[in-house]
C-alpha cells in the first residue's frame, strides 16, 4: 500500500523561513519509515505538501481539504499556526475523520477544542512553559523584567502565563507589551520597553521575526543586555546573529533530555538541514507518531489509529529515539509496547498534547549551551 501523509505548513507568509526545516523534519521521518519497509507489511509513505500560509484560515482550509479529499492522505502533520490549525481541524480534520498532529500550534485554546480525538500536538501548551520560565528567571536572581511578546495567540498566551506565574512567585513585571512580526522597525517597542526598565527582557517571539528585531534594537541602544528566551527564540539563528552579545542571556525550550535531540541533529545534518531550527524536531516527532500509531493499530485508517497515538507516545515500553523508527515498527509488529521519545522527548498528556520537558540553555561564549533540564 502507498500511504500518503499530508504536511500542512506556512511555506509562504510570515513564518516561511522556519517552515522548510519543519517540512524536512517531517519528511525525514516518513522517509525513514518508508525505507525501512516495515510499516504495515511494506507499505511506503509519500509526503504531500500543502501551503497553508499560516495566516489565512480560508486558504489553509482549502489546502487541507485538498490533502484530505483529493490526495487522500491518512494523516496531516500540521497545521502550523494556531488560528489556521483550528480552522482546518474543525472544517476538515474532524468532519473528514483525519488525524492531525501539529508540531507548533501551542495555543491553550487547542487544549479544549472538541476534536473527537483526531488532534494531537508534539509541542506543549504555553501554559506550562510560563511556570518553568518564571522559575528559571527567579533562580538566576532576576526580580524585575519587562516582557514583550509576538502579537498572536502563542505570544500572548505565553506572556500572560509567564507574567502570572512570575508575579505569583514574587517577581516584578514592569511592562507587558506586544510586538508585531514582520514590521519594518522596532524602535518604538524598544523605547517603550527601555523606558519601563527591568533587569532583563523576556522576548516571547520568534527568532527570525520580530523577536530578533527587538533584541537587535535593545542591544544597539543599550536598553537591555540580558534576555530571557523561550522556545520560539532558542534557535541557532539567534546565535549566528548576535554571537557573543548574548553572554548573559538564557532561556528554555521544550526538548528531550539528552540523546533525542542530539540524534535528531545528527540525522538532520546528514539530510542537509538544521535540526535545531524551531519545531523541526517536533515535526519529525509528529510524523513519526502517526506512522507508529498506524503500525500499532495495524491499520492506516485514521479513525482506527487515532486511538493508538497516546499509547505509542507514552510509557510503558521500550524507548524509541530518532533514527530508530524501524526498531519501533518491528517492536510494534511483534505486539510489544514502545515509548516514543523522539527528538523532543514526546510525552503526551490529555488531551493529546506534549507534557513538556524543557531544557534550560544559555549563550555563553557565543554558543548555545544546555545547562539543565526541568
Amino acid at each position: 500500500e502507498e500511504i500518503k501523509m499530508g504536511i500542512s505548513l506556512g511555506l509562504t507568509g510570515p513564518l516561511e523561513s522556519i517552515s522548510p526545516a519543519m517540512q524536512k523534519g517531517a519528511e525525514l521521518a516518513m522517509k525513514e519509515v518508508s525505507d525501512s519497509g516495515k510499516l504495515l507489511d511494506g507499505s511506503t509513505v509519500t509526503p504531500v505538501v500543502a501551503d497553508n500560509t499560516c495566516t489565512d484560515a480560508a486558504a489553509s482550509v482549502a489546502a487541507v481539504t485538498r490533502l484530505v479529499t483529493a490526495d487522500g492522505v491518512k494523516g496531516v502533520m500540521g497545521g502550523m499556526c494556531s488560528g489556521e490549525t483550528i480552522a482546518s481541524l474543525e472544517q476538515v480534520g474532524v468532519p473528514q475523520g483525519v488525524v492531525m498532529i501539529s508540531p507548533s500550534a501551542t495555543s491553550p485554546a487547542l487544549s479544549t477544542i472538541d476534536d473527537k480525538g483526531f488532534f494531537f500536538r508534539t509541542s506543549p501548551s504555553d501554559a506550562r512553559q510560563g511556570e518553568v520560565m518564571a522559575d528559571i528567571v527567579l533562580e538566576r536572581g532576576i526580580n524585575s523584567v519587562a516582557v514583550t511578546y509576538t502579537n498572536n495567540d502563542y505570544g500572548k498566551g505565553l506572556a500572560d502565563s509567564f507574567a502570572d506565574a512570575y508575579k505569583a512567585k514574587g517577581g516584578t513585571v514592569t511592562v507587558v507589551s506586544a510586538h508585531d512580526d514582520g514590521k519594518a522597525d522596532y524602535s518604538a517597542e524598544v523605547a517603550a520597553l527601555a523606558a519601563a526598565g527591568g533587569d532583563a527582557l523576556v522576548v516571547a517571539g520568534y527568532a527570525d521575526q520580530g523577536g530578533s528585531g527587538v533584541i537587535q534594537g535593545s542591544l544597539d541602544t543599550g536598553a537591555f543586555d540580558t534576555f530571557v528566551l523561550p522556545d520560539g527564540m532558542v534557535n541557532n539563528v539567534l546565535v549566528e546573529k548576535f554571537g557573543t552579545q548574548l553572554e548573559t542571556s538564557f532561556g528554555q525550550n521544550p526538548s528531550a533530555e539528552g540523546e533525542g535531540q542530539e540524534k535528531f541533529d545528527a540525522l538532520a545534518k546528514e539530510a542537509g538541514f538544521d535540526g535545531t531550527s524551531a519545531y523541526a524536531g517536533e515535526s519529525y516527532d509528529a510524523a513519526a507518531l502517526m506512522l507508529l500509531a498506524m503500525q500499532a493499530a495495524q491499520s492506516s485508517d485514521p479513525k482506527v489509529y487515532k486511538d493508538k497515538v497516546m499509547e505509542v507516545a507514552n510509557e510503558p515500553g521500550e524507548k524509541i529515539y530518532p533514527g530508530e523508527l524501524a526498531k519501533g515498527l518491528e517492536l510494534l509488529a511483534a505486539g510489544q509496547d514502545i515509548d516514543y521519545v523522539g527528538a523532543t522527548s514526546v510525552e503526551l498528556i490529555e488531551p493529546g498534547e506534549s507534557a513538556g520537558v524543557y531544557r534550560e540553555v544559555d549563550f555563553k561564549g557565543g554558543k548555545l549551551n544546555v545547562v539543565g533540564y526541568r
Partner: protein
Amino acid sequence: MSNTRQAEAVSPWRAPVLFLILAALFLAEGSFRNALFSGSWNTALAILNMGLISAVMALGVNMQWGYAGLFNAGVVGFLALGGLAPVLVSTAPVQGAWAAGGPRLILALLVGLGTLVLAAQAWKRVSGLMRVPALIVVLVLGFVLYRWLFDPAVMAIEANNSARAGNIGGLGWPVLMSWPVGALFAAAAAWGVGKVALGLRSDYLAIATLGIGEIIVAVMRNEEWLSRGVKNVSGIPRPVPYELDLQNSPDFVARAAEWGLSPAVASGIWVKLLYAGLFGIVLLGLILLAELALKSPWGRMMRAIRDNETAAEAMGKDVTRRHLQIFVIGSAVIGLAGAMMVTLDGLLSPNSFNPLRYTFLIWVMVIVGGSGNNWGAALGAILVWFLWIKAEVWGPELMRLVTGPLPAGALRDHLLGSAPHMRFIALGVVLLLVLRFAPRGLVPEK
C-alpha cells in the same frame, strides 16, 4: 486628443461564456485527477464557497469603486467588523462575564460615544478663541471619565476565565441572524468613517481608509474583552448540520451509499452544498438588487457623479450624501461577507485579517472581473479565488516542469526547495495575462 480612448464593443455573449468556462473549471476540479486538478468534489466545493463569499466582498468593493469611484482600501477592516457579529450574536454567553463588568462597559462605551458627539457639537457651536480650548476640555474630560469606567470593567471581564474565555461573550442567537448584524456593524463604522474621510480623493482616500482598516483590525487584535483578541474565538455555531452528525445518521449513510460515496465524503459534500446554497442566494439577491439600482436613474446619477463631481453637484445632485450612501452600503455588503466568512470558518482570528489578502486581493478580483459591472465583479472574484488556491499546486508543478531538464544538483535542489514561492509568480503571471487581454476587465462595464 485626450479622449481618443475608444470603448471596444463587447459581445453580449462574453459574460455567459466566461461563466461557463468558470463552471467548467470547477467541474474539472471536481472530477478529473491530474497534475492540475484534484478531482475531489469536496475541494471544488470548498473553493467555490469561499469564492462565493469573495464575490460578495467584490460586489461591495465594486459598488464603492465601480459605481462611485471611491477607493476604499480598508476592506479588511469592514470585513473584520462584519466578522465580529457572529461572535457577539451567536456564540454562547460567557458565564460571569456580564456580571463582571458588562453594564459598566456599556456605560463606558456610551460615554465614549457621547464625548465624540459632544466634541463635534462643541466644535460646531463654539466659535472664536474658545473653540479649541472647549474642544480640548470636552475631549480630555470625556476621555478620563471613559477610562475610569472602562479600565476596571475590562480588567474584570478579561480576568474571567481568561484561558478559555475572557471576553464578553455572545447572545447565543442563531448564526444567520448575525449576518445582517455584521452588515450593520460595518455600515455604522462606514458611516463614521465616511463622515470624516470622504472629502478625500483617489489615493488619499485609499490611504486614509487603509489606515482605518488597520486601526479596526488593531482594535480587534488587542481588545480581548471584545472577541478574545489574538487568542481567537473558535467553535462559532453553524447554520448547517455538522458532518459528524450526518455520518452518525443511518439515513444519511444509506443515502450516501446509494450515490456510492463514503459517509465522510458525502457529508462533506452535502454540508458544502448547503453553504453554497446559502451563499449563492445571498449573492444572487445582492446582484439582483444592485442591477435594478444600477439600471435606473439612481445608477445614472451615480455614474454622473463618478464622471464629474463638480458638474453633478451643479446639476443638483448631493454628491457628499450620495458618496456616503454608497460607501455605507458597499461597506455593509463587505461586512455581510465578513460575517458569512467567519460563519464558514467557524473561527474569528483577527491575526488573519491581513490587507494583502483581504484588501488587495479583493481589488484584484474587482479589476480583473470588470469594475462597474456586478456580474464581472462576481466572476472575477470566483475566478481569482480559484487561481489563488490553485496557484498553491500549480506553482510547484510549474517549477517541476521548468527544472525537469536541469541536471540534479544544488541549483535544482534550491529551485525545487523554493517551489512554494512559485505560487506568487504563477498568480502574478495570470493576473498580468488577464489584464493584458482584457484591460478593462473580463466583463467590462457597458
